[in-house]
């Protein structure tokens, strides 16, 4: 572990060292390899030793990084460079430097890989640098990877070589290997087995060796933990953030790198893609970004490369750091290469060779040897790794049995088993993939499939009676995202898929698309790897190492072309630069609005956030208010105060002034501030009760259509004037009817049409509805639904009477105004041939079969799609999905964010069940039920949900479980399914019999369609914890705080006792329920009140007390709050009649006045099954 510098050692060094230890530690590999090698590859010898030597060492190099912690980055680079470019150098150096050669191997190879590289650490890059400068980056590829050695060197090359040689002396001096050397052997050693495996495995194999698993675990964890907490394995958001943990992860990362390598090599047999993915993730995370930047060598390298391929990183740990991340270069090449011995192969070769030679000898025991290794690393780094299920998975992997699957399939009799909830919130199930693929796979928070094992045929899918679909959260805030600037974005030529970790490299020059299976060429530019600064390693490019990447798009992706598609009719806007950020606020100022008092709070909030509005110097803003007339505001720079222009002709709205209504925020900031301060007072006397929302929206549309952008509408009552006027459709007496609920659909197509117009002009409309009466959200919401906006609803909003809503409104506004935004976006979802998407859920306009038009895209909305299997997937073992989101950032850059998910294809029903993701299924079913209730009726939708459980249970009973036991039996993976469905049936959106306002119901439906899965699940099935007796058992340690991890409780009143305090986490709101007999200490320490009676009735904050209990409770709350976009409200609920109801309505397992309890529900299901 000790010498950080050590990492630097290039492969060559490692090799040597390796050999040294070998002498002591592990004889078998030592001699074996070299010899075998020779024998296997006589031709190589002919070609010239040097290149091989270089490559030879590579493998060890990989391994080396593991032990040494951080700073490896530079050195690695250099090493890489070195290797690749200066093959000759090495030789020379060798000669120059007396290197102890322990190598026993008879082959000439042993010698060359020697010292120079390691020692050189920082130095070599410079040298390289120079060279690069001398030649256009790619012009002389030869120099890069030294095909010279293979072929008679052309004149040019020779000259280069000479240069190199000259430079070498400088490089050499930096000695260094000293301290690190002893360590190396240990590390590198284990690598061998992996390689050997590689050599031996046949290409068909895609299953992971058991031994490999640990690696996988180690790697992803730390990786995620450091860099992107959000995306992590699942859940524990807090982890990533914690600085202390970071250190560890780093280490981990590197350690894991090593592992992966091996794994990879094992898998490489499968195909290239495997490895390509494998490394990607770890690298960035593994190496702390700081180290990267600090290194001079690295930077220079960066400059050089920039000419062709560069990287920019707006996100803290982005690609730049990625680059810094050590890529210990060499990868085992594909099988093909071995045979072909293509010139490019020279790179990859070394590994292969090693693998090969070792192959026979070590193969047998390869996996065992893995194990200890993996384990040790695992133990070492296990601390940051919070996730129990993963752990068990890993262990399962260790033991070599797919225990997870078995576990997931354990039949559970729901009628007998009462406690089904896991102690911690449920994690997304891991697809049953090889560890390499798992490692690079897209985060489940971004991309989730209802069935993590895709059934092979539609028949099998039908048999399973589970819906197949994807849940996407593509624009989620990521803490770490590789950003790639590249002149050519490599895509499949027939299906336009972006290159991703799951493609197959047939050889260095060709790759096979994983969606359509077309074989494509690898463009020249892609041959250069900016991460390792080496040439000829397309499979190590960040695009191929990360399932989530972002490209800075070139002019091909400019709006013009896209615009054409969007709006065939409009010829006006073609080919224009990316739009500036443009925000228009449309404010209701009728009497009703003034009464509710929102205007002041909105203006205050906007004033505060004016500088945080995403955008650049071109950002434009505008304001428009309306009651029965429409008021525009001239904010032209140079005016002494804002000018109000009133248009009272609402039947034929026109824009009174062309260019002064949307103004540059920077130039007119003073005027904007003026307006915001005076606006609330301006209308305080308004007596106008009519609302001309429709015409106001038309005006807003006209105002924005030249640029596109975001319209934010605040509305407080039913629109009554002009186009789009609506009538009240709600019959209050029907609110709690058990029969169908009417009027869930829109009353007019006005808003839909307008939304489509907006969408065509790249205008997104966000709706804030603050009203106490019926406002026909079902109709109005269309304006946002089809223009990819978001909808916020604050029922009975009043600034005095309803402080809770006011606070929520303010918090939401803070987030809303400052959150990231993407303009003029489109998202395309591609799937492996044979799969097709047939239904979309979410706010957008589906422009063609797989293309979603999103005028605005925000980080808080999610999408769902349903899929069907059109052709059998039998000919492939993997199914892939790619979502590509093309958008204009608020800074006016066209960017493409690409997510790729890879899942195994199975042909057994039991495998399908084992991979079922119950949360994703619930969410997808919820979306389907919402559609159903709008197109058909609510009772239909409810029946369909119940039938989903019935069908599933009977399908499982008849097809999979061979136990003839009575009762309701489901596989363990799906044991929460009935609870979730029951909880769904009790949601506002879908419940009957309980009084529910139509608007609230409709809003709940909209939420279902747009909320990301975690949020939705918390809303449907909140997490219940008991707080008064939390222990530190299993607590998390983040930074200096201890975050207790109380167990999840079933949502039933029987778990709630009067002497306790319970926390209910509903996603957007926390309820802290205090029992009547709750001990006074808790009340005093946490709430700061003396006893139960003195707790104020509307408490909505936990005071910051210095007591340990309070600290722990707040730590828990903060931790839960972490990574939620919108900050959650807190309500303290006392155990007395008035407010209790809000709390107990979430106890979904209990019987309510109109709905059955969980047990009754199960019996109902069972009854229907036996029919």
């Amino acid at each position, binding site marked *: 572990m000790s010498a950080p510098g050590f990492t630097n050692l290039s492969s060559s060094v490692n090799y040597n060292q390796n050999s040294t230890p070998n002498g002591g530690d592990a004889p078998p590999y030592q001699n074996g390899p070299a010899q075998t090698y020779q024998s296997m590859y006589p031709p190589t010898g002919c070609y010239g030793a040097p290149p091989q030597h270089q490559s030879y060492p590579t493998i060890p190099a990989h391994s080396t990084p593991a032990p040494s912690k951080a700073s490896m980055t530079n050195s690695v680079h250099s090493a890489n460079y070195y290797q690749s470019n200066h093959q000759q150098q090495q030789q020379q150096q060798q000669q120059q430097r007396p290197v102890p050669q322990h190598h026993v191997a008879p082959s000439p190879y042993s010698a060359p890989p020697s010292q120079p590289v390691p020692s050189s650490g920082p130095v070599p890059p410079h040298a390289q640098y120079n060279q690069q400068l001398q030649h256009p980056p790619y012009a002389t590829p030869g120099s890069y990877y030294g095909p010279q050695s293979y072929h008679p060197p052309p004149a040019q090359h020779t000259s280069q070589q000479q240069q190199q040689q000259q430079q070498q002396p400088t490089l050499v001096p930096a000695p260094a290997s000293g301290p690190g050397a002893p360590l190396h052997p240990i590390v590198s050693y284990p690598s061998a087995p992996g390689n050997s495996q590689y050599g031996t495995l046949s290409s068909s194999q895609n299953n992971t060796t058991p031994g490999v698993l640990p690696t996988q675990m180690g790697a992803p964890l730390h990786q995620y933990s450091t860099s992107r907490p959000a995306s992590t394995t699942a859940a524990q958001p807090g982890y990533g953030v914690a600085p202390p943990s970071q250190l560890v992860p780093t280490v981990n990362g590197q350690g894991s790198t090593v592992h992966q390598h091996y794994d990879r090599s094992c898998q490489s047999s499968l195909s290239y893609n495997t490895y390509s993915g494998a490394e990607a993730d770890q690298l960035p995370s593994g190496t702390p970004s700081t180290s990267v930047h600090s290194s001079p060598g690295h930077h220079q390298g960066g400059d050089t490369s920039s000419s062709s391929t560069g990287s920019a990183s707006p996100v803290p740990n982005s690609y730049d750091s990625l680059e810094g991340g050590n890529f210990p270069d060499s990868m085992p090449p594909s099988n093909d290469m071995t045979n072909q011995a293509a010139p490019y192969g020279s790179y990859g070769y070394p590994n292969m060779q090693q693998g090969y030679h070792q192959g026979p000898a070590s193969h047998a025991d390869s996996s065992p040897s893995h194990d200890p290794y993996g384990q040790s690393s695992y133990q070492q780094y296990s601390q940051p790794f919070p996730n129990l299920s993963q752990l068990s998975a890993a262990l399962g992997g260790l033991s070599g049995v797919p225990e997870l699957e078995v576990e997931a399939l354990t039949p559970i009799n729901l009628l007998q088993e009462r406690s089904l909830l896991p102690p911690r919130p449920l994690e997304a199930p891991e697809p049953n993939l090889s560890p390499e693929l798992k490692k690079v796979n897209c985060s489940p928070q971004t991309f989730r499939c209802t069935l993590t094992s895709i059934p092979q045929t539609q028949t099998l899918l039908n048999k399973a009676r589970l819906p197949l679909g994807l849940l996407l959260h593509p624009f989620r805030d990521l803490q770490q995202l590789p950003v790639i600037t590249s002149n050519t974005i490599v895509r499949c030529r027939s299906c336009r898929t972006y290159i991703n970790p799951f493609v197959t490299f047939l050889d260095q020059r060709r790759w096979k698309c994983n969606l359509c299976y077309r074989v494509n060429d690898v463009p020249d530019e892609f041959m250069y790897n900016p991460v390792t600064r080496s040439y000829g390693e397309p499979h190590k490019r960040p695009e191929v190492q990360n399932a989530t990447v972002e490209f800075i798009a070139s002019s091909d992706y400019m709006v013009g072309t896209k615009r054409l598609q*969007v709006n065939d009719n409009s010829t006006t806007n073609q080919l224009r630069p990316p739009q500036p950020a443009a925000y228009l606020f449309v404010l209701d100022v009728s009497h009703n609005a003034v009464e509710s008092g929102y205007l002041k709070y909105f203006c205050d909030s906007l004033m505060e956030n004016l500088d945080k509005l995403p955008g650049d110097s071109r950002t434009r803003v505008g304001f428009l208010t309306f009651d029965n007339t429409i008021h525009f505001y001239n904010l032209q720079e140079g005016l002494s105060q804002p000018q109000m222009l009133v248009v009272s002709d609402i039947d034929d709205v026109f824009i009174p002034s062309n260019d002064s209504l949307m103004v540059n925020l920077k130039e007119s900031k003073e005027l904007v501030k003026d307006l915001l301060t005076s606006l609330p007072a301006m209308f305080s006397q308004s007596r106008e009760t009519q609302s001309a929302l429709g015409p106001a929206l038309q005006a807003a549309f006209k105002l924005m259509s030249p640029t596109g952008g975001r319209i934010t509408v605040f509305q407080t009552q039913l629109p009554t004037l002009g186009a789009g006027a609506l009538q009240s459709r709600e019959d209050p007496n029907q609110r709690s009817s058990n029969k169908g609920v009417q009027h869930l*659909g829109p*009353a*007019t*197509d006005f808003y*839909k049409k307008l939304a489509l117009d907006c969408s065509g002009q790249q205008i997104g409309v966000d709706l804030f509805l603050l009203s106490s009466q019926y406002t026909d959200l079902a109709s109005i919401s269309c304006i946002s639904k089809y223009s990819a906006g978001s909808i916020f609803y604050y029922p009975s909003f009043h600034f005095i009477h309803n402080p809770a809503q006011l606070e929520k409104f303010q918090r939401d506004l803070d987030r809303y105004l400052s959150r990231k935004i993407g303009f003029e976006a489109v998202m395309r979802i591609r799937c492996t041939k044979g799969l097709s998407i047939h*239904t979309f859920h979410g706010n957008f*306009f*589906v422009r063609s*079969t797989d293309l979603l038009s999103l005028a605005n895209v925000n980080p808080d909305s999610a999408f769902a799609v349903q899929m069907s299997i059109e052709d059998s997937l039998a000919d492939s073992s993997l199914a892939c999905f790619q979502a590509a989101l093309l958008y204009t950032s608020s800074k006016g850059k066209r960017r493409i964010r690409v997510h790729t998910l890879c899942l195994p294809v199975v042909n057994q029903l039991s495998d399908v069940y084992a991979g079922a993701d119950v949360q994703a299924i619930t969410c997808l079913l919820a979306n389907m039920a919402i559609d159903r209730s709008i197109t058909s009726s609510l009772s239909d939708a409810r029946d369909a949900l119940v039938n989903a459980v019935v069908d599933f249970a009977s399908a499982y009973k008849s097809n999979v479980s061979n136990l003839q036991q009575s009762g309701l039996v489901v596989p363990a993976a799906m044991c929460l399914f009935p609870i979730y469905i029951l909880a769904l049936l009790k949601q506002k959106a879908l419940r009957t019999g309980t009084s529910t306002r139509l608007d609230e119901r409709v809003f709940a439906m909209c939420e279902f369609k747009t909320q990301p899965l975690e949020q939705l699940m918390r809303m449907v099935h909140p997490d219940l914890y008991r707080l008064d007796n939390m222990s530190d058992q299993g607590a998390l340690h983040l930074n200096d705080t201890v975050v207790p991890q109380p167990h999840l409780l079933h949502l039933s009143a029987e778990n709630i006792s009067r002497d306790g305090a319970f926390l209910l986490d509903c996603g957007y709101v926390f309820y802290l329920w205090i029992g009547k007999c709750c001990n006074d200490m808790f009340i005093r320490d946490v709430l700061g009140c003396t006893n139960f009676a003195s707790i104020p009735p509307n408490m909505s904050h936990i005071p910051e007390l210095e007591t340990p209990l309070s600290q722990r409770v707040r730590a828990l709350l903060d931790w839960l709050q972490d990574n939620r976009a919108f900050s959650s409200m807190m309500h303290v609920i006392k155990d007395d009649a008035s407010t209790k109801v809000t709390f107990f309505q979430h106890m979904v397992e209990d019987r309510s006045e109109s709905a059955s309890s969980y047990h009754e529900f199960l019996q109902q299901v069972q009854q229907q099954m036996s029919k």
Partner: protein
Amino acid sequence: MEAAVFILSLVDCCALIFLSVYFIITLSDLECDYINARACCSKLNKWVIPEMVGQCLSTMLMLVSMHWFIFLLNLPVAVWDIYRYVKVPMGNMGVFDPTEIHNRGQLKSHMKEAMIKLGYHLLCFFIYLYSMILALIND
């Protein structure tokens, strides 16, 4: 007289055939992503009423001229056309709604419907042709 009826329905039928072909072409354009949903739907919705009128016209002609068999053949299609038109939800932009056409396999079912109609109209076409010739000969 009878010949005139059939000539008229023949012309009507031709128009319906062309309409069906037009529907199929437009829908398949949408399927292949040559046009966008909005354009496609606004194109198609324009022709929903003419199609319905055409179908009802030939149905009425047969009823008036008391060709019961052909009338019964025509009736279900006419009823379907009317039903489909009446059943459009209030908020939708017509039989073809751009926001829903890609959902729940609607595109496919529209396509299927257009195909079936095309086949049906072709059948009718030959029946009318035959009847017309028969009528002309009889005259």
